[in-house]
């Protein structure tokens, strides 16, 4: 029982981060059909900027706010300087553009910061909580609560604000949205800004547990992409659920089978699922028009 609970919490904690990255992928994809492989770099920026601002003497909440601002600015620049000029390019070209951006951001981070691993102090102490004999880090609860709050906040925004409805309208049909007077360029920029902020918050929350460095973004982007695809690309509920499921599977595979192939779990799962269900778990069937 203790082991089960332990693995469950470990899995949910990493799963929550995957879910946030997948959610970022989904948001940008919905608004623009762009798969943004730089999504993982927002998580890296969130963690790294907070660490360096905190070490420079800023209080933690301010450092975190600064990190989110830096990530959002990076997201907006990425949209303005790379995605918008490449408008109308093929899927593969856009993928390469965003991967180029992620190499660029990582390269800059390596110069501005350094190549070391960094930690943040846990928000409410390191004393583990006891639950059914398992030791749960309080920071895990921060990650879960933070991810939950983000998902709920995003849902409120999408369902109950005019701007959120504009995003959904753009996702549903870009031309129709433009015809009813929605400025889809602003919507797109907004999608990049929000997904950057989501990624950064994920990075800040998880850094006390997993540490961070300039290079953590790549594997997160790849796993987040796998999660987004697993849920059926463009489906936010699917993205969040798949992120959590991948985190859990990874934790249980590491705990019960072997930790060597932990990083392969997400990709093995996506391969197996896609072989059986070519549209992802919750995706709709697309029909090709001739």
């Amino acid at each position, binding site marked *: 029982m203790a082991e089960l609970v332990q693995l469950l919490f470990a899995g949910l904690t990493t799963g929550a981060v995957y879910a946030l990255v997948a959610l970022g992928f989904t948001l940008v994809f919905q608004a623009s059909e762009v798969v943004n492989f730089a999504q993982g770099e927002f998580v890296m920026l969130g963690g790294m900027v907070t660490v360096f601002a905190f070490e420079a003497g800023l209080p933690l909440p301010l450092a975190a706010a600064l990190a989110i601002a830096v990530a959002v600015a990076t997201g907006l620049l990425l949209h303005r300087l790379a995605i918008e000029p490449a408008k109308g390019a093929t899927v593969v070209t856009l993928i390469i553009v965003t991967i180029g951006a992620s190499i660029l951001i990582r390269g800059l981070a390596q110069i501005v910061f350094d190549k070391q691993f960094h930690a943040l102090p846990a928000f409410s102490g390191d004393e583990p909580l006891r639950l059914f004999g398992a030791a749960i880090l309080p920071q895990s609860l921060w990650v879960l609560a933070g991810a939950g709050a983000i998902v709920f906040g995003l849902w409120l925004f999408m369902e109950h604000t005019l701007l959120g409805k504009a995003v959904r309208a753009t996702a549903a049909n870009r031309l129709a949205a433009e015809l009813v007077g929605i400025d889809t360029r602003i919507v797109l920029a907004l999608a990049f800004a929000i997904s950057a902020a989501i990624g950064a918050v994920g990075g800040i929350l998880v850094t006390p547990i997993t540490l961070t460095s300039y290079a953590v973004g*790549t594997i997160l982007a790849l796993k987040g992409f796998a999660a987004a695809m697993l849920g059926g690309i463009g489906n936010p509920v699917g993205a969040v659920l798949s992120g959590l499921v991948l985190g859990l599977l990874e934790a249980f595979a590491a705990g019960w089978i072997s930790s060597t192939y932990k990083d392969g779990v997400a990709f093995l799962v996506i391969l197996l699922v896609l072989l059986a269900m070519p549209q992802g778990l919750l995706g709709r069937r697309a029909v090709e028009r001739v």
Partner: protein
Amino acid sequence: MASGTRTKLLVLGALPLVLLLVPLLFPSPFHLRVAALVWINAVAALGLALLMGLAGQVSLGHAGFMGIGAYATALGPKHLGLDPLASMGLGLLAAGVLAFLVGRPILRLKGHYLAVATLGLGILVHLVLVSEVPVTGGPDGIQVPRLELLGWRVAGPATWYWITGIVLLLAAWLALNLEDSSTGRALRALHDSEVAASVVGVDVARHKLVVFVMAAVYAALAGGLFALFNRFVTPEVAGFLRSIELVTMVVIGGMGSIPGAVVGAALLTVLPQALTLFHEYEHAVLGLLIILFMVFLRQGIVPGIAGLLTRRRAA
């Protein structure tokens, strides 16, 4: 197709010329080494160009096949006591068989689903190479024995320059022939519309599989050549970034263009060598250049230049 024949003549005429000129212009061993790397990467990029350009299918895990070719060449002599060249042959076979087995189900997928499936495949290959330390030597890599042919010890940048160059020439010739064959026409048809192609009787699944297997074998061949030439391989040969480099070579050169694949391979092989001058700015500059190329030369270098030339001729 007239333009197809012209490309064929152009490539088969220009490529040998380039092969002859490079050693005259850049005779230093360092330059010949870099040039040999260009030819090796071009072989892999050629295969991928067939898959992406001709058939319109993307692979974000193609370095996985390169890794299979490279590691087969390294491991055969060590664990099975085989000749390096025979081991490389086994590597090509292994890559082809793997592509054949996973190809049919994977190639049913479209767009981003195909992208994530091939991405996963590549990452799993890379992970096995990193993790099976007793067999593969793990992340530190492994030595590859020197190639000997009938008592001739194959060594030196100049020798490898010619070997890799001739392999590339043969690979390009085969690729051009495929483009012109009935398979090539079928692939172009299914690239435009799979439904329309199947309606006129093209066996879509079979043709996609053929080109996928071929692209995998090309990549494995490049991997094997790299192992023999470099005499040392690490799992990075199969890494995600390598896969992306290969895709970028194809797209930067010009999607679907066989000369483009060679130009793209040259650019992405020489560029990092030149960028080492920038020391720690290397990665940032590489990322920036990739973005600039993709944004401003979207259809690729070779089609872009060809377009400029035709426009000038028309004017």
